[in-house]
Every structure is written in C-alpha cells, then in structure tokens.
C-alpha cells in the first residue's frame, strides 16, 4: 500500500528531518517528495510505500500527528487511492 503524507505549516528548520525520522523508525520508504514555499508557508507532499512498515497504519498516523504537534505543523497521511479516485478516471 502506498500513501501520501502532506505537511503544511510555517517554514522552519528540521521539518523534513522530523517527518523522515518517524518514517525511518518504522521502515516506511519514501518514493517521492515535492515541496513548495509560498511566502512563509511550507507545503510538502511525500509519496511513501508502506509495504515493509513495522507498525499499523493507525499508530503511524497518530505518531505523525504527534510529530506534527512538536513541529507546529499539520501532518496527514492518507491512502493514495482517495486522490487517484477523485482526480483520475
């Protein structure tokens, strides 16, 4: 299963590290990253592969949300199919 992680908030040092540290801990592989900075607002979208994940999805989601709180960013993880189903036929 693949999922998109979206990270949104005010730009600061250590955002990518904060997120990827969690992913590394649980064997989540990053397949692609894109990021934009609009004025002070930082948005990052990561496509990740959860095939080898060592934790269940709900716990990963909660851990990422907790990391988001530490960074003062909003972090979401969603199954890739919700985006594909909405935007592709």
């Amino acid at each position, binding site marked *: 299963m693949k999922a*998109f992680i*979206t990270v949104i908030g005010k730009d600061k040092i250590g955002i990518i590290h904060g997120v990827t540290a969690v992913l590394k801990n649980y064997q989540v592989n990053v*397949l*692609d990253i*894109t990021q*934009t900075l609009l004025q002070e607002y930082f*948005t990052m*979208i990561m*496509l990740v592969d959860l095939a080898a994940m060592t934790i269940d*999805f*709900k716990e990963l*989601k909660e851990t990422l949300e907790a990391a988001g709180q530490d960074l003062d960013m909003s972090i*979401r*993880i*969603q*199954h*890739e*199919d*919700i*985006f*594909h*189903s*909405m*935007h*592709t036929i």
Partner: protein
Amino acid sequence: MINYKNIMETIRMIEKEKLDIRTITMGISLLDCCDSDGEKSRIKIYDKITKSAENLVKIGDEIETEYGIPIINKRISVTPIALVAQSSRDLNFVAYAKILDKAADTVGVNFIGGFSALVQKGCTKGDQALIAAIPEALAATEKVCASINVGCTKSGINMDAVRDLGMIIKKTAELTKDRDSIGCAKLVVFSNAVEDNPFMAGAFHGVGEAECIINVGISGPGVVKSALENMKGQPFDVVAETIKKTAFKITRVGQLVAQEASKRLQVPFGIVDLSLAPTPAIGDSVGRILEEMGLESCGCHGTTAALALLNDAVKKGGIMASSHVGGLSGAFIPVSEDEGMIHAVNIGSLSLDKLEAMTAVCSVGIDMVAVPGDTPAATLSAIIADEAAIGVINNKTTGVRIIPVHGKSLGDTVEFGGLLGHAPIMAVSKFSSDDFISRGGRIPAPVHSFKN
C-alpha cells in the same frame, strides 16, 4: 506522482469545505425472521442484525483512518417491519422497535431504519398494527426510524393512511413532548419511496433487494458552494458545469468508500446515493449554494429554479462517477439541518409554501420542518397529501418529516441537537382541511400520457 494541485484540492475539500461520507448503511433483509411466535421472531431479528453488522462500525472507522475522509454515520436499514411482524400473533409491534433499538446499540450504529410499512394502495392487518405502534415505538426507542409509503405513481395515494398519519404524528409529538417532540423527527411519510435509500429517517431495505448490501450516502454542500464562489456573474451554463464537475469528484470518493467497505465486510455493494446533505454547521448548507447563485436569500423568487438546476447537475455529475447510483440522489432541503435555511426562515424569506414548491424539484420533500404544536391533525394530513400529490404526479420521491412541537408556537425555536439541528417554528395555513381529509379512500393513479 499525482499532481500537487489535485492533492491540495482534495485536502481542502475535506478540511475546509466539510466534505465527508455522510453514511455507510448496511441493508439487511429480515424476510427470513418471520415467526408465528413474536418472541422467536425478535430473537431471529436480533441475531441476524448483530451478526451481519458485527464489524460495520469497526470497518467504517478503519476506512476513515486510512483514507483520511470523515465517515460520519454507520447505520442499518432493514426490511419493512410490517412485512416481518405480521406473521406473528402479536397485536402490538412496539416490542419489534425495541429489539431493533437493542440490536443497533449492540453493534454501535447511531440509527436503524425500517420500522416501516408500504401502504400506497391499502393496509394489511400488519400494516395497521405497525402504524398504530409508531408513536409508542418512537417514544420508547432512541435509534429506530420509521417510514410509511402512502402513495406511488402507479397506484395513487392512500388517503385513509394519509388521514391516520396526521393523527399518528400528533400522538408521536405528544408522547415525546418532554424532548421537543423529537419522535416526529424519526418518522417520514413517503410517496414513491426508494428501496435502497441509505439516509435516515427514511431508510429501509426493500423487498427487491439482496440478502445484505452496503449503500453509501455522500455529502458536500460546502464543496459545491466553494466551487461556485469562483464563478460569480457567470451564466448558468457555467454554473451547471461547475456543479457537475464537483459532484463527480465527490461521488468518486463515495464510490471508493463503498467499494472498500463492501470488500472488507464481504457484503455486496449496493448503491452510492449522491445527495448533498446539509448539516447545521456553517459552510455545509444547501440554502447557501442557492444564494451563491445570486439569490439575496433562500426562499425568494428564483429559488425553485436554482434548486432545480442544482438537483439536476448533482445527478448528472454523480452518475458517471459511480457504477451504481441510487437512493434519493440530489439535494436535500431539511430546514432544521441547514444553517442557510434556518436563517432564511428567521428573516422571513422562506415559508412553508415556498418549501412545498421547492420539493417539486429537490430530491425528497418537506423535511425537518417544525410547526406549531396546536396544528390540527387534518392539517398535517393535508400537508402530506399535497406532498404525495407532487410526487405521484411528477413521478418523483417526496416525503414529509414534520414536527408539530408540543407547546411551541410561532416565534419559538426548537433545539433537536446534533445533526438534527434547530428550527424556528413555521406557520401553517389557519384554514381547515378537515372535511377534505375525513373523506378517506384513494386518490387514483394519474394518467401517464397527455403530460402538460
């Protein structure tokens, strides 16, 4: 990788515009739960529901977590209970409502629909027993919803049932008077009722349906309104096209959730109902979409045309997005559940008469309307008759969910709480329909040719 703009659009729809899956409703046939012994029949019903829906809430929550889309309600619809209960020797069907309530509690769903009877052409003994049990059943239970189909295009309108239901609604209001007559919010009187509607209070599992199915109801008025905000001053062609595209995207999510729920529960997928279902929350209103089209306030002249366009465009957009569209599909206009409509009633721009006109083009009918507690039963029956006539003649589903709130009168407001919202009391005609309703009998089925 899917593009950045699309991902952010989906997230914005969910986070800011309140896109959600309104309900995953499991339809369960209870036709094999009949028994001449009512007690045995109810044991079968309880066992079947709790076994079939054992994992419904858990799976719903899992899908919500994985896809990041809120799934607000998990619900159950069952075979109209009149069909099941009338095999028993019981004369009072309230115990059937209680067992449904208990089963709903056990599996953790928030509503169970199907305390119902289909009487469009006439009542059997069991239908009469079920109708008579409605007030007590709705007062004695929390989660049970009732519905009665009193008319259909092919058979006309059963005016005896219409007359009786005016009195049943009054009695239901009386028995739940300590909670602002909330029992009436759990009762819909339909014409042309659909068998696969996942939305409450009118959901039941029709006799033409399979053993067990998954139906999904989507929502998303906020998404449509937001899309129209960028189309100010554009002609209606553009408005319709924008609504269609938005409805398509919303419905795709519904289809995904329905397929996933069906796979995980190992229950066949029934339909996606692509209704715009408002909530009392700001930004989740159908009334505000109509205003976005250029109306000063929902209910002013032009509202019916705006709603007709919206209802049609939602269907057109959604139909291609799902393999099976069904239910009520369109735009709901439940007054107490729609922030924009509540506001429109409060400022005097939306009346019951205008609402009735709107029901000729919306997806259902007069919905969640609070009227004075002293409204005569015959007036309620006459409102039902008017709605049934609109449905029967125009070959569409109509419904009436009206609450004569005990002890309240014009100028008062009633608070139902949660998704049921709050409503100002609306005026009904002060002139009597008594003699009209007391006639009883049937209004014949309409001719299907010479349409004008």
